[in-house]
Structure formats: structure tokens, C-alpha cells
């Protein structure tokens, strides 16, 4: 073989060995599309908006609103034909679950770990994420019942997270809230500030949110676990409760493309900005009408004759002869305005809960007079939240609003539950949860009946488990639960 041929062979071998270097290959596989580490702030930002997208969209807000009879579909022309008859799409059931566990839960869980592993430890960020996670998981367990919690989000260790009993989950949430409240250092600047969509890092407000959430969870449990009354009594007059609208726990939407409140956006995108599909439900409307509630023109639109006409559950809306809608839709200019925030925990809600505590004497001596004051304060704050002037609000609560101070405890409690129902017109998840604890089966406030066309079995109390989780989790329950089956908190 000639020398030049030998040189050629050697060249090939050299080229081969050289070009197969591992370092080069590892460099090629460095992902340019992701960050390998990230501040908890940004995981928190995504988790928060994913959560509200879930809460206000077509997987939680609308199906629960229809199935709980908070509003009416007006027949089969629009959305919700199905949901109001308890036919809730498996996609909604699955999307809600994945939204809570993956989009919100996992990112909050990682944010907590990152905050606690940071140097210096970011205790405030950990607390912000824990308190948010507590509210997220409160919603999850109220929707689905027993759910994974202690083993959730630890994919390495627990590949099949065990479903914890709801009572245990709720107690664990109370522990987590206490843990978070203990972590908060209002003087520290180490926290999630500008990327905190709720309070912009105001840790004093976070303490109020945590305390209020704790009270709310305790109120959900107390009828099943009367021992919670003590803790309720200890909290009811805490100065750390949200009692003023400035402390409301909410997340903002904007009058900008793709930042709109989804409740409004659905009509913006599909119906030219008018609402031809979702109407005042007769149940809630009648309660308001009987009490001359000034929120009626805020919540609903009058028809062209100036009348408000509600629609029964799963029933056709009324039309004018030319096809225009005669029934009253939910107002897109007021209640579902484009930049309406998603209100998650409010002062009116807490004041009405406090009123209920005093009526029922939960951990405190029953005091109807005190309850009446708080009840009026709660209603007033709800009116003012909906842009009714303080003067008009005062006039209403001191005028048309039934005074409960002279009522029996049972009747007073009923009035409070009615105001809770009205206050939650726009918060279908909270309204439905509150309705479930408002009385034993058959005595809830308001008194609902099975929608026409819904399967026999009972009123809507839960989502079924999503098939995705049932199929992939060896520790999942058998999945035989129906939409009307009770979970632990249901009375």
C-alpha cells in the first residue's frame, strides 16, 4: 500500500475518533429553551393565574354555576345544556383536576421548596405559596372529596399518591396555614413582591388572608366535627380577619386582549360582547326580589321593557316575537365586566360567617344582636363591592334588608345563608360549598330541587374522579362515586 493511502486511512480513523467526543454530544443536548433554576416568585405567578383560569373558566365556574342553579342556561341554544342537567363533561372534570394538581399545585409546591432552600431562606415566599396552596387544596377537596395531599407532588418518592380522607386533608390544611402564619416576617424584605398578584408582597394582608381562610375551613368542618367550635370562637374576633374590602383576597383581570376575565371573554369572543346564553336563575332572583335587593340591576340586565325576568333551571328563556331575548341575562357591564377581579376570599364573606357564628353560638355565646350588626356589615360590604354607594348601602341595610335581631336563631341563620347565596352570585364555587354546609340534606338554604332532566339520585354535591387519575394511580378509589354522592363535609 502506498504511503498516501496509509495517510488516508489514518485520517479517517482520526476523524472518526475525534468527532465522537462525548463532550461535544453533551453540549449539543443542553436545552436552550428552559431555565435550570428559577426564583419561586415566577412559579408563584404562573400557579396563581392558572388557578384563577381554572376557577373562572368553563371547567369549574360555569359547570358548578349551572349544576348548583346559581344561574340558568335558558334552554339549548347556548352553553350549559347538559351541565344544568348534571351532565358535566369528563374534560371539565379532568381539566379541573389537572389544573389544580399540576398547573397550580405542583408549581406552588416547588416554589415552597425553592423558597425554603434559598439562602437566605425566603420564609415569606414559602408562606405566600403555602397559604395559596391551602386555598387551592381546600377547593380540590370540596370538589372531589378524598384527595391525595400528604403524598402529592413527590413524584420521585410516591408514584401513586394515596387519597387522604377529606377530614384529614382539611386538618392538614389548617396545620399548613398555621405553619405559614408562623413563617411570616412582616419586617423582612425577602418575599414575593412585584410578582405577587394578590397583595404585592404586603405580608400583613397575607396574615389576614391566612387567618380568614382558617376560619372558613373551620366553618366547613364544624358541623361534622363540633370540636372545631373552640377554634372558631378563638378566631371570630381576631383583628387578623379580612373585615375590610381593602384586604380582599383577589386576583385582577384587565380590559386588554387576552387578560380579560374569562366570564366576560367567553361572550366577547363568541357573542359579540352580549350575553344571550346565561340568565338570572329564578331561585336566587326571587330571594333578591323579595328583599328589594339593589344588586338586581348590577347582577342582571333588564329587558327592553325595563323588566327583570328570571329563568327556571334547565328551562327555555323567553323570547320576543322577533327572536330577541326577553329574559334577563347576567350583566356583562357590571357583574361580569371585562376587568372584574376573581374574588377568592372577601370581607363580606367573613362578616357573614361571623354573623353566622354569633347566631349559632359557635365557640362563643349566641348573640343575635351582634350577629345582626355583622350581617348588616357583610351585606353592606357586598353592596359596596358591587359599586353601590355607601349612602345607598346604608339606606338598604337599615331599610329593606330584613333585620334579624328579632328573629329566631333558625330564621336568622336562614337569612344569613340567603345573603351568602346572594353574595356568592358571582362566586359559584364558594356559593355551592356554602350551600352544602347550610343545612342537612333537604334543608339547605336556598331549598333546591332536582333540575328537570337530571338523573335521579340527589342534588349535585361533587365532581366524580377524573378517569386519568383513576387509571394511572394504583391507590385511587374505585371511582364509583356519582355527582350526588356525599363527601365527608356533606351533611
Amino acid at each position, binding site marked *: 500500500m502506498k504511503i498516501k493511502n496509509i495517510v488516508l486511512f489514518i485520517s479517517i480513523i482520526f476523524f472518526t475518533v475525534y468527532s465522537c467526543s462525548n463532550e461535544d*454530544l453533551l453540549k449539543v443536548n443542553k436545552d436552550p429553551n428552559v431555565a435550570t433554576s428559577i426564583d419561586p416568585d415566577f412559579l408563584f405567578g404562573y400557579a396563581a393565574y392558572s388557578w384563577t383560569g381554572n376557577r373562572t373558566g368553563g371547567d369549574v365556574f360555569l359547570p358548578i354555576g349551572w349544576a348548583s342553579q346559581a344561574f340558568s342556561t335558558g334552554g339549548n341554544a347556548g352553553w350549559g345544556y347538559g351541565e344544568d342537567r348534571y351532565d358535566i363533561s369528563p374534560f371539565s372534570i379532568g381539566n379541573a383536576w389537572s389544573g389544580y394538581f399540576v398547573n397550580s399545585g405542583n408549581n406552588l409546591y416547588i416554589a415552597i421548596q425553592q423558597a425554603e432552600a434559598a439562602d437566605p431562606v425566603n420564609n415569606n415566599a414559602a408562606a405566600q405559596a403555602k397559604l395559596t396552596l391551602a386555598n387551592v387544596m381546600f377547593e380540590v377537596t370540596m370538589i372531589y372529596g378524598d384527595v391525595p395531599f400528604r403524598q402529592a407532588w413527590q413524584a420521585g418518592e410516591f408514584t401513586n399518591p394515596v387519597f387522604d380522607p377529606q377530614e384529614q386533608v382539611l386538618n392538614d390544611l389548617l396545620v399548613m396555614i398555621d405553619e405559614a402564619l408562623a413563617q411570616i416576617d412582616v419586617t423582612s424584605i425577602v418575599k414575593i413582591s412585584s*410578582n405577587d398578584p394578590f397583595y404585592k408582597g404586603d405580608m400583613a394582608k397575607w396574615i389576614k388572608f391566612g387567618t380568614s381562610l382558617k376560619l372558613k375551613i373551620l366553618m366547613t368542618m364544624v358541623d361534622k366535627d363540633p370540636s372545631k367550635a373552640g377554634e372558631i370562637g378563638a378566631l371570630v374576633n381576631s383583628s387578623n380577619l379580612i373585615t375590610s374590602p381593602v384586604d380582599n383576597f383577589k386576583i385582577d383581570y384587565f380590559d386588554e386582549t387576552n387578560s380579560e376575565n374569562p366570564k366576560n371573554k367567553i361572550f366577547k369572543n363568541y357573542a359579540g360582547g352580549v350575553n344571550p346564553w346565561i340568565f338570572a336563575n329564578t331561585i336566587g332572583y326571587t330571594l333578591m326580589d323579595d328583599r328589594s335587593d339593589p344588586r338586581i340591576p348590577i347582577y342582571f340586565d333588564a329587558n327592553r321593557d325595563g323588566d327583570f325576568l328570571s329563568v327556571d333551571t334547565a328551562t327555555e328563556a323567553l323570547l320576543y316575537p322577533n327572536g330577541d331575548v326577553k329574559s334577563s341575562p347576567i350583566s356583562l357591564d357590571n357583574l361580569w365586566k371585562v376587568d372584574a377581579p376573581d374574588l377568592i376570599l372577601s370581607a363580606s364573606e367573613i362578616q357573614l360567617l361571623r354573623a353566622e357564628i354569633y347566631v349559632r353560638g359557635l365557640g362563643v355565646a349566641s348573640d343575635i344582636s351582634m350577629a345582626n350588626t355583622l350581617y348588616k356589615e357583610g351585606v353592606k360590604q357586598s353592596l359596596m363591592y358591587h359599586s353601590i354607594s355607601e349612602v345607598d348601602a346604608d339606606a338598604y341595610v337599615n331599610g329593606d334588608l330584613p333585620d334579624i335581631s328579632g328573629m329566631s336563631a333558625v330564621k336568622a341563620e336562614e337569612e344569613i345563608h340567603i345573603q351568602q347565596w346572594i353574595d356568592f352570585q358571582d362566586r359559584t364555587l364558594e356559593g355551592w360549598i356554602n350551600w352544602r354546609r347550610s343545612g342537612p340534606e333537604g334543608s339547605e338554604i336556598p331549598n333546591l330541587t332536582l333540575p328537570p332532566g337530571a338523573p335521579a339520585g340527589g342534588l349535585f354535591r361533587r365532581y366524580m374522579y377524573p378517569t386519568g387519575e383513576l387509571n394511572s394511580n394504583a391507590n385511587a378509589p374505585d371511582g364509583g362515586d356519582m355527582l350526588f354522592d356525599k363527601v365527608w363535609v356533606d351533611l
Partner: protein
Amino acid sequence: MLVLLLFGSTIALAQEKTISGIISDENSLPLPGATVLVKGTSTGASADFDGKYAILAKQGQTLVFSFVGYASKEVVIGASNTIDVVLKEDATALDEVVVTAMGITKKERSLGVSVGEVDNESLTRARSASPLDALSGKVSGLKITQQSGTPGGSSSIIIRGATSLSGSNQPIFVIDGMPISNQSFNQDNIAGGVDGGNRAGDLNPDDIETISVLKGASASALYGARAKNGAIIITTKKGKKGSGLKVELNSSVRFDSPLKLPDYQNEYAQGTAGTYDVNSINGWGPKISDVADQTFVDFKGDQVTLTAKPNNVEDFFDTGITKINTVAISGGDTKSDYRLSYTNSDVKGIVPGSEYKKNNFALNAGRNFTDKFSARTNVSYISSQSTGRTQQGSNDGNAIVSNILGMSRTISFDDLRNNYVDEAGNQIPLTQRTNNPYWVLNKNPFSIDVERLIASVELEYKITKDIKLVERLGTDFYNESRQKLYAKGSLGTLAGSFTNWDYYNQIINNDIYIAYNKSNSEGISFSAILGHNLYQTALKRTTITGDNLTVAGLYNLGNAEKLNGTNYSARRKLHGVYTDINLDYKNTFFLNLTGRNDWSSTLPKANNSYFYPSVNGAIVFTEFMEKNDIISFGKIRGGYAEVGSDADPYSLLFGFVPSSDYFVQYSLSNNLPQGGIIGFEAPRTLPNANLKPQRKKEFELGLDLKMLKNIVGIGFTYYNSDTSDQLINIDVPLSTGFFRKALNAGVVNNEGIELDVNISPFINNLGSFKWDLGIVFNQNKQKVKSLVDGLDEFNLQSGWSGLTIKAAPGEEFGLYGTKFRRNEDGQFIINAATGLKEVQSAQRLGNIAPDWTMGINNSFTYKNFGLGFLIDIKQGGTLFSGTTAVLRGAGLVSETLANRGETFIDTGVNQINNADGSVSYVENTTPVEDMENYWLNQSSTSNTEGNIFDASYVKLREISFFYNVPSKMLSKTGITSLRFGIEGRNLWIIHDNVPHIDPEVNFFGTGGPAATVEFSSVPSVKSVGFNVNLTF
């Protein structure tokens, strides 16, 4: 004319005379059926039983004598009128050459594996704009399915059954040694995604000389990590060295129309429960004849009388027109060759406004610079533009196919077309929530433009007589721009929006190998190559959405109030060292060994180097037999190989992705940042730092025979493959915080037979009549041997409402969904309250793959006429028809007429739950409320079983007729050959079991296992066309 005259004047006139003689072999035995041809013409004759022939020719012309298995012989006609010839037996004459892996040509006789080959004639007989569709029914073991009737749409090819639980099942495409991209993106997936085509469809069938299909792992093992799904090796046409200028013109025009449309009822208008409703697009309204004296509001607000429009859907579709024109020049001197071609394809689809234009330029040129050094270059530039690509599926205001196929019987498309906007230019929608289809067609066309260059250069240097060095460097890169529009005023996006997708894809491939060849006088030949391969890909995708347009109709980013964008890029690199060793003893025993080691960038350091071996061999056993008339050639062959593939880039490490939006149901997702809040999120798939390559092990055994004096040729192959350590992302409990987890798991087995039979009854006979019958048959049995421990099912693909394609241990890939409940006796369980069948979810409904497929290809030639047709048969498999679901649920098709307005009691039983916990059944006596309720339950989209059908079909795939103008008539024109053809594709579904749609469907496109799922796809087309082929 002047040109023709000039050519004509150069032809010397000579007197024709009859030449006759005897054609015999070396033992002086006559060779009946041997042929004699006047060189350069189509004049020919065959020898009779005594070997005698007679032919008309002129002195000075050359006669070519040939016979199967014998070396051809040429004799120049002299003064004598008698020419006797002796043909020598030539083993190599049987040895057709086949292009195999790495572009290495091998004698077909020597192959130990099954390789399918299709030539240009077959590909262009009934031309399709894509070369892939033309393979259907011509190679055994191939399953080809078109996704839709969209012009420039995609076709999936699966060889020997789907092997992968996740990722692609598509083979690697190699053109002139250069692996090319066959990417197919469907960014919007089932929610309004378009059939964007796959990149192998860019190739021009007119430029292709042959396609070799390397079916098994043994054949494709040299491609290592890319060879798991087989390989399609394309060789393009070359010019001929030492020939003059040849000009070829090929022109086709083809007319397309829907192959099959639904069978509609024409008695009932839209509405509910017999009452008219302008906002319901269905057929559950009043009986049209009952309301002839009434008027109703139509979609545009006019009061109209209802009349049936039986042909409304048919009238919606245009006649599609496909024009394909090719001009190619080729030739060469003694040292060089070249071929330069240009093809223009212009397709107007059946959906109004859909167009696809493609320009292919190709150059293939080679030169021998010295005796030792030669070079060849191939350059192909492809530019395609398409507009009006139909958005399919649902959940998108632009997805109109279901509304078109599901149009109410009283609505005319003319009316919709003439009234899609009012005087102010605002849309007149079909219903409150449904766009007028002509608004979408006119205002919101989806466009795709592709610019692509495939180029390679090959340098060859002969170091010695036996050793050569080959270097082949190539690249394939393309830019693809897609645009989706929502004009201002489109329902769902009233403020207007548009999305631009820009894809850049690049492949660089380099092979360098040294090849050694040596034969000795004892009949031993040895050849080997040792090579190195570098293969790297890069892709970049940028997506920008502009929302809220200021000026209507202006799709400029500056015209959008809000912009939201994402980008993604990925690179991967693969090095391979390979060897291919061939031993040939006396042209009878053949052994082939290959080995390849790959190093991949996508796997962890510990697992990124892996070796794939293969061995195959063949024995021509007829060499040991007496020569006989029964078997003239026989070969047994066998092979074993291991191949595999690496992971997707960046599957190993955890990273946080910036979030550009957050999910809200009903396509209401909002953008991030919002209100200044920035989001990052953890990955949805849990990465795995310990991934390893997946591996496919396959063995095959085969037998090739030529029998009955070569009248019958048979090729039979048995294969069995296990694909293990599959790289899959399994669903994990969402409560872990992730949707999926990456891991290696699962074994999928494919076992099957392939049979290729060729029968040419007249091969040895006299006369001008020829008949070639080719049959290809494939039976594949797939079985999922195992998944992950504890996992009963693995989701391969998901559609709507619980329809899923899944893998389950012990089963083939199957279609799953809701199924009607039955008792132990198989009777339907009917709800006693509603009279409707009860259902249960997540049930297996059938296999997705067919039991067997067969192609029957006939071609007849008589003198200058030819007739060919191809029948394509598929037996078995399960099909889901979303169109049938929609149309039945909506009461629009003829079967929904039955029992309307009457009492109907469905056959089945009611379940009685007894007090003691036992269950008993009584015959159902509850009538359904009405047939609207019945069909909504029986056949809604969420009721999968009601829309499940046997996917079998028998189709007349191709039919063609041609006429070659006799060379005599052309002799004075300078035209070498002229051919006229009539061609038809997909003309007739001879048999199927599915109502309303063509059973050949693949809604999911090329991404997965090619399940026969249909959901409001553009109907497939039948075409008839004409073709002229002219060569100077």
C-alpha cells in the same frame, strides 16, 4: 414544424426487409419466447416453439436478441436476410441490481433480506402529486394512509406494522444517499389543525428512477439509530453518459371530485323535537312537506318557505384540477452526465379556495474527472405555496367541515355564498355561534409556504483497483411559514387575530467510507466497507399571535393590539461508525454482516454509545438442481438484526419553561405576563436522566422462486420483531404534579408474512400481447408483549369524548371508548326510564391495524396499447367515524328517517337489581321519547361504539390506459417517443362497510400508529386525468 422537418431530413431512407432465423442456446436447443427488437424502436417479435423468428427491419439497423436468464446479444443487419443467434446463459442476467442502505447497490440475487422496489413507470402510471401515495398496493408490507383530501396533504407509511408506543412509526427517507426530513407538524392538533402535509411529499415523482423499500431491520441496519421503522431509499434519474441531448416533456391534467359523500335524508328541516330552530344545524325539525304552507326565519333573517336541497353538500365542492407539467433535459459526453428538470404542480382542491402550487427544480450531474476520481452532485429546490388549507376537527371557529357535511337539508350553499356578509361588510353567520362557511373560506384561509433545498455531493476516489474512498456530504433545509387567520368579525374571535408559525429545519449528513472489492478465479468475491457517519439536525420554531386587529384584513404584527409569541429550538447530533461485509461464493452462497456503533447527543453519557449488529445470508439452491422447467431459480434467505433509536432532545433534565399563557376552557386561555405578573412553570413530563436507546430485534426468513419457465415469480418472507426498551412518556397520576414520566419500557412484537407473486403467462409466447399480474400480500400480527409494571394500558393517542388509541399487554394496538352495556347473553342493557341503551366508558372496541392487506396489479399490453389497474384490498381493522356520529346525531342521514314520529322500542333488556343483591333482566318495553333522543344516544360523538365500523375495503386504486405512438409514425419528426395516457386514481370503492365516508382515513396524520379515526376531515377524492409524455 421547421424543427420537425430538419430532423426529418436527416433520416436516411432505406428499404425494409424481413429478417428471419433461429434463436438457440449454447446446446443448440431452441429458445421459444426469446425476443428480438429493432434497437431504438418499439418493433419487436418473439421466437416460436422452434426458436424461429421473423421481423421487418432495414439494413444497418441493429437487432437485439434477449431471453430471461441469458445475456442479450446485438447484431447489425447486413445484406443477409437470415440471422441465427446463440444466446449464452448468464447468471448475472438474472441479477437485477437493487439499491440498499447507504446507497450501496447489490445484486438482487445476493440479498438475504426482503427489499421492495418500485420503478418510475409504476410511480407515474396514474400520477399523484406525492410519490408516497403511488406506493400503495405495490410493495408488500407497506401500509399507506392519506390523512385527508387536502391538496398537499400528508400520507403515513408504516412498514411491517407499528412498532412504537410513542413517537414516530415512519421510516427514514433517503434520497441519493442523503437522509431527508419527513417532518409533519400539526400545531393545533384535533382542535382546528390542518393537514399540513409531510415533507416527503415535496419530492417529485417524475424525478424518481426507483424507490427501494428496506422493510426489515436487517436491510436498514446500516442506518443504525434511524433505522427502526425501515427505510425508503430513493434514487433519482440521471442523464446517460455518451448520449446526446434528450428532452422529455410530461404533462398531466387531472380532475378531482369527492370519492364518497354521505347519504342524506331530504325530508326533515332543522330544529328540535319537530319544531324549526334557525340556530340548530341538523335535521330534527319539522317534516318539510308538512310545513309547505308556512314560512320560517332563515340564517339571514328572511322569512322563507322550507324546501329540501338534496345536492347541497355535493354542490358545495368544486371540481378539483391538478396540473402537473415536467420538462427535463438530460444527456452527457463520455465523461459526464447531467439531468436537469423542472416540474410545476398546480392543484386546485375540491374545497373552494384551496390551492397548492409546487415548483420542483432538480439537477443530477456527474463527471469522471480522471480514471480514479469522479464526482456527482444532486440539487433539488422545492418551493410550494398553499392557501385555503382546511382546518379540521372541532373547537375552532374556522373548522367548518363538520358544518359543511352536516348542513341542514333546507339550506343552500349558494344562498350562504351569496349572503355571507351584509352590506356593511359584517358577517351573516350560519347560527349565533357558527361562522358562515363562506366567511371562513373567503376571509380566513390558512396558508403554508415551504422553501426547501436538498443538496448533496459525492466524491469517489479509486485508491487502487480494489479500493475506493467515497465521501458524501449533504444537507436538507427548509423554511416553512404558516399563517392562520381570524378576520375581524369571526365568531369566537370577533376582534380579529392571526398566528404566524415559522419553522426552520436543517439536516446535515456526512458519510465517508472506504470500500474494498475483490474476486478470485475460484468464484469467491469479497467486499467490505468501513465508514463514518455524522448526522445532525437543527430546528427552530417561532410562533407569534397578534390579537385585536385595528384595520380589518391587515395581517401585520404592527396592526395587532397585542402580540404573544413563543419560540423553541432543538439540536441533535449522531455519530456512527459502520461496516458492511459481503461474501459471495460461486454466486450461490451469500453472507452479509453489518455492524454499526452510534453515539447520540440525546442520551445520557453512560448510555449514549450503542452497537447494532446484523447478519443475513442467501443460498441459491437451484444451483444444485438439474435444470428443469418447473423451477428455474430458487433462493432461501434469512437475516437477523438489531437496530434502535435514541430519545428526543432534552429529555433528560428538569428545566423551567417561561409560560406564555394559562389555560382557560373553551379556547379562552389568557396570556402571561398579565398585569405585570410573570410566570414560569415546571415541565409537564417528568424527565429521566437514565434513559437508554430503544432496541428492535428482528429476524426474517424468505424464499424466492422463479417457476414454470419464469412465468411465475414468488417471493415469500416471514418476519418477527421485538421492539423493546421503548422510550415512552407514560401517564402518571396527576396528583404527582406531572402528566407524564419519561422512561424505557414495553415490548411490542410484530410477526408477519409478505408474499409477492408475479405472473406473466405470455412471457414465453409469441405475439404482441403481454399480461403481467402482480400480487402483493401482507399479514401482520402485532402484540404488545409488555408495558410498565402495574400499567394495564398505555395511551397512544386521544381524540374526543373518551376516544383513545391504547396499547394493552397481550393485545394489538386498539381503539377504546364508550361501549353499549350488555348482559352475559350479549343483550343490550336498556335504561327502563328512558328506553335508551346504557353505556360504559373506556372499553376496547377493536384493533386499529388491518388483519391483512393485498394489492392486485394487472397490466396488459398489446402492440402499442397498454391497460393497467390496481386493486387495493384491506381486510380488518376498526374505524371510528366522527362524521357519521355528527350526521346521525343531527338526524341528517337517511337511516335516521326510520321510526320518526312513531313509537320505537329498542331491542334489549332492562336490568333489575333485586333486593338480595342479584341482578336479573326483563325485556325492554320502554319506548324512546323520540328518534332524536335515540340517535343522540346511539350515535353521539361521546358514544364511541355507535360510530365504530369494520375498516375493510376493496378499492380500485389506479387504472390507466396508454397508447405509444409507433416509432414509425414518429420517425420523421425527431420525436423519440410519444405516449398518451388516461389515468384514474381512487375511482371506485368496490366494497366497504362504513356508511357516509371513505374508510381510508387517518385523522391523526403521520404522528402515531395510523389509526383509522375520522373526524370531519376533508373527503378523499377520486380523480380522472390525461397524460402526455414526449421525448426528443
